[in-house]
């Protein structure tokens, strides 16, 4: 605590600066180390250490000033070389000794105060007490309490006045020493005992000088401090002038009060004023710290002020008072914790010798202390322009951002993309600070976040610490939803708020003038076998001149190309709108040549991801059902198919092309099967046929009357034999329908045996688009006997029971065909040695044979050569063979003339074969 008083104020500044930075007791210091590395798999990794926690203990420390200086240690009255302050007073008058107590520890503490009277002096003060000098004016005032201790928070200080009375018995020049000793309550070993002051009893003139500052302690940057110096002659005589106390052009005589303005403060022009109860007052100024003075206020650079009370002899009577005040400004932007201490000096003559060199003639006031509190302030603005006076442009996120004043704007943005506004803030406060960043104004569907200046690291929580005066850059990134568009500007407000003082904040504006859709698609017919080169939309939505004709069951191809005409990558679903029961499939056309790739790729239902301006080609294959009726459409005018690509991101984005598919008219018609039969003369035979419309239009069938060469009668029935007509007309046959047609041949008596007629019967189907005809040949042979043979056939699907064709008109390899041959005695007498034979048809394989009979008495015998007979049917039959059956009515296991077939007797032969 031993310092040269000349550097006291400087040291005080430093000491207080450190005191404020002390870590408060109870704070836990936490620390965790971290590492990043690249592992053996070439992957970047990170890890952290354990958390180390250390608690800060309280340190007790305080100071009492002013300090006395001593020639040894510890400080005692015996080794006192200079008291910290000297006061003079009239015997019997009160005296005030001003002290400042500061808590320089890191927690709250009570400082116990006790005055100690000296013993190596002339007298003791009486009635000594300690007063808490709340307004720090150096003297007790009404309402200020008497104390024995002061409790101070960390970094706080208090003004103290030790008051006492000079005993009336004291004589002029006698002295009293008194010390204000302090002890920390928290740690009694922490003391401050070098605070000796001296009181000199004085019957001569005594001028007091007290100094006060307003505000008393904490100040803010830019604030004015009003200093007031005042005092009076409390001595026993009039005070006198000092000869040549100051030179103002010429040497002047009088009482001089001077005050050197603390370094760093700026004198406020015209703020100096003063008055005195006697003499002539001259306000004086110095620009060199009091070395020389002028009565004319300099325009700048004033660093000391004062007042000359001019007079001669002992002109300043007992009780006369004076006052002097001025203002000094704390600089803007000064660091928090900076401290300004100030005292004033007064010179007068008390013993009429014309100088101020005698004890008590030079008075030093109490010292005022003002500390700059933390002032928080922030400005945020466009990138690299925190003060908001920006211009020019920069590029971020693919957009050009224009800066103007405190606003940044993007002219036009696309939906589905992200806009980035970069910003810079400045800590315009006087201490290190951190800042909370926030934003508002983003429309629904926008997703915004704050990023560090690398434009990738998200910011969470407050940013900083940012040193006073330093800048911090960051960015606001907003992703615009796919569906958001607007023609009016979107305004975002970005705000930076001090964490030190939440009332200190600044905003800056970002705006996007319009948002247009970033999604668009164009589907075009691929007419040129290459990607692109098609007419512009919507002309490319139709393809005049292209209307592929297809048969029912066939397909038509439409090559087309899908172009992403937006700015964002997108995938499109492919759909088709078609006539009922038509289908379509889409195939990638990798080389865009408009032809189906080989091998044919798998069909797709979407395009896959297409980047902006990229084209992909596809082929739509339209499948026309077998039941399709004829269509004749004009491409571009009456299109009947549509293909649409729809964005999977934004369903409202799509494009459709139109196409035309013609369906051919098909006129196919069948009339089957050919029939043959035998008939007696006279006699009648009926053949059954099938009419089928296999075209894709309804048909009307007609069959003209058949004129027999032999005068036989041919009749037709379409109702199952109920009515018979000589010709057929107007028989309606819908698409795919079949109709039964019976043909009756009536043979008159007297026809020769073996006369045969093959009648070609032609049916004509009339369609809307033309006609088709088909014929059957019915062959009728006159037989003499009374045995009638008839043969029919049915084909089956494979070896199943499913009928392929009731007339065996159609059979595929592997299908089975059953032939049924019926032999009937239609005469009136017995027939003998009746053998029914049937050849195995070419290109067929024998499956089985069986025979039944209505003839009583005899078993059916089988033969493969007509001479040897067996009761069991053969199980195989070589190609080209013939199967024979007969009925053995006499039981000799042979078919001879002895075997008879009575009238109405029937033998039925059933032969099953398989088509090779």
């Amino acid at each position, binding site marked *: 605590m031993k310092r040269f008083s000349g550097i006291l104020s400087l040291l005080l500044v430093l000491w207080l600066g450190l005191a404020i930075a002390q870590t408060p007791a109870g704070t836990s*210091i936490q*620390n965790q*180390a*971290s590492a990043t590395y690249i592992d053996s798999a070439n992957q970047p990794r990170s890890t952290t*250490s354990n958390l180390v926690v250390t608690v*800060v203990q309280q340190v007790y420390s305080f100071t009492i000033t002013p300090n006395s200086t001593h020639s040894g240690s510890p400080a005692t009255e015996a080794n006192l070389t200079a008291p910290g302050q000297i006061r003079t007073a009239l015997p019997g008058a009160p005296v005030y000794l001003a002290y400042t107590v500061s808590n320089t520890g*890191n927690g709250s503490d009570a400082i116990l105060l006790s005055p100690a009277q000296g013993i190596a002096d002339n007298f003791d003060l009486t009635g000594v007490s300690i007063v808490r000098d709340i307004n720090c004016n150096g003297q007790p005032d009404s309402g200020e309490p008497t104390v024995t201790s002061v409790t101070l928070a960390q970094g706080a200080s208090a003004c103290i006045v030790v008051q006492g009375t000079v005993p009336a018995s004291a004589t002029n020049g006698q002295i009293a020493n008194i010390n204000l000793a302090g002890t920390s309550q928290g740690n009694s070993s922490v003391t401050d005992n070098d605070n000796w002051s001296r009181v000199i009893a004085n019957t001569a003139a005594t001028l007091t000088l007290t100094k006060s500052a307003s505000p008393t302690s904490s100040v803010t940057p830019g604030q004015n401090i009003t200093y007031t110096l005042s005092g009076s002659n409390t001595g026993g005589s009039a005070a006198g002038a000092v000869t040549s106390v100051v030179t103002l052009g010429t040497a002047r005589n009088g009482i001089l009060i001077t005050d050197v303005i603390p370094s760093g403060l700026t004198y406020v022009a015209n703020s100096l004023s003063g008055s005195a109860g006697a003499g002539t007052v001259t306000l004086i100024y110095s620009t060199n710290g009091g070395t020389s003075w002028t009565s004319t206020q300099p325009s700048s650079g004033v660093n000391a002020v004062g007042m000359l009370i001019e007079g001669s002899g002992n002109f300043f009577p007992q009780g006369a008072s004076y006052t002097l005040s001025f203002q000094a400004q704390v600089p803007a932007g000064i660091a928090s914790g900076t401290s300004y201490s100030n005292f004033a000096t007064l010179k007068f003559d008390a013993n009429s010798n014309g100088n101020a060199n005698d004890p008590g003639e030079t008075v030093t006031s109490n010292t005022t202390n003002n500390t700059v509190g933390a002032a928080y302030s922030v400005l945020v603005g466009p990138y690299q322009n925190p003060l908001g006076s920006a211009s020019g442009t920069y590029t971020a996120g693919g957009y050009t951002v224009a800066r103007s004043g405190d606003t940044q704007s993007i002219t036009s943005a696309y939906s589905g993309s992200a806009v980035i506004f970069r910003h810079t803030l400045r800590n315009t406060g006087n201490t290190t600070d951190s800042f909370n960043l926030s934003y508002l104004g983003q429309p629904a569907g926008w997703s915004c976040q704050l990023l560090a200046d690398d434009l990738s690291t998200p910011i969470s929580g407050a940013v900083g*610490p940012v040193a006073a005066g*330093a800048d911090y850059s960051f960015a606001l990134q907003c992703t615009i939803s796919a569906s958001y568009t607007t023609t009016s500007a979107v305004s975002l407000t970005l705000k930076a708020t001090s964490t030190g003082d939440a009332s200190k904040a600044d905003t800056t504006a970002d705006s996007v003038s319009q948002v247009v859709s970033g999604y668009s698609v164009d589907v075009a017919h691929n007419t040129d076998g290459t990607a692109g080169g098609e007419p512009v939309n919507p002309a490319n939505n139709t393809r005049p001149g292209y209307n592929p004709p297809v048969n029912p069951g066939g397909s038509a191809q439409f090559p087309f190309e899908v172009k992403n005409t937006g700015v964002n990558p997108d995938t499109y679903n492919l759909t088709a709108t078609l006539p009922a029961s038509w289908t379509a499939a889409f195939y990638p056309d990798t080389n865009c040549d408009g032809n189906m790739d080989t091998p044919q790729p798998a069909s797709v239902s979407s395009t896959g991801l297409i980047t902006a301006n990229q084209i992909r080609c596809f082929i739509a294959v339209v499948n026309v059902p077998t039941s399709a009726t004829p269509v004749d459409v004009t491409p571009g005018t009456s299109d009947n198919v549509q293909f649409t690509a729809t964005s999977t991101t934004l369903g409202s984005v799509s494009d459709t092309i139109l196409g035309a598919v013609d369906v051919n008219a098909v006129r196919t018609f069948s009339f089957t099967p050919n029939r043959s039969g035998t008939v007696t003369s006279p006699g009648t035979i009926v053949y059954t046929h099938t009419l089928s419309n296999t075209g894709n239009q309804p048909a009307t069938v007609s069959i003209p009357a058949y004129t027999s060469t032999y005068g036989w009668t041919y009749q037709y029935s379409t109702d199952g034999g109920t009515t018979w007509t000589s010709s057929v007309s107007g028989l309606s046959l819908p698409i795919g329908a079949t109709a039964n047609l019976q043909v009756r041949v009536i043979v008159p008596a007297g026809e020769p045996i073996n006369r045969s007629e093959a009648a070609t019967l032609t049916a004509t189907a009339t369609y809307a688009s033309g006609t088709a005809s088909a014929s059957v040949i019915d062959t009728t042979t006159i037989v003499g006997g009374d045995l009638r043979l008839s043969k029919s056939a049915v084909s089956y699907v494979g070896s199943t029971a499913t009928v392929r064709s009731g007339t065996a008109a159609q059979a595929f390899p592997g299908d089975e065909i059953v032939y049924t041959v019926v032999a009937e005695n239609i005469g009136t007498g017995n027939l003998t040695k009746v053998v029914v034979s049937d050849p195995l048809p070419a290109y067929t394989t024998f499956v089985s044979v069986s025979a039944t009979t209505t003839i009583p008495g005899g078993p059916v015998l089988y033969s493969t050569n007509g001479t040897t007979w067996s009761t069991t049917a053969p199980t195989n039959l070589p190609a080209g063979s013939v199967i024979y059956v007969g009925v053995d009515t006499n039981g000799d296991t042979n078919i001879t003339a002895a075997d008879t077939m009575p009238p109405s007797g029937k033998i039925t032969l059933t032969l099953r074969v398989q088509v090779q």
Partner: protein
Amino acid sequence: MTIGVLVLGVLASGLALAADAVKLTLTSVRVVQENKNGQVSETFQPALSVRPGDLVEWRLEAENTTERPLRQVVLVIPIPKETRYLEGSALALERGNTRLLPLFSYDGGQTYGLPPLKRKVKVNENGKELEKEVEVKPEEYTHARWVLPELAPKEKVLLKLRTIVR
């Protein structure tokens, strides 16, 4: 695309469960210095509690726990804000014939450099805004780091720095 991202996410979280290849152990001790006849001796005491002005030494031991070398190992000791870095106390790491100098950050670990660190400050002088480069004092440092090109299998390194409790 979505599927790919998902698969990566699963992989990453799966690996995160695996033991860290670098084991970090941070300890703190209080350094008590005594001056006997001009000879300064130091004793180390546990730093469970400290007082303003105390000297605290932070020791970071990093060990490669795997059987394979690790590359680009960056070891960071933060300087707690309640303390200030003691200039010159972070020592270079001697590895064979190379010396790895510590790098320092004053901006919370965003940037690192060799002392003296410089900071750009905008000042208003006579109405003109000027950008000045000022030196950053060691007491403003926020982080120290060492960048090891490689940490051999099972290798351990010990890093130290000292701070003074504010």
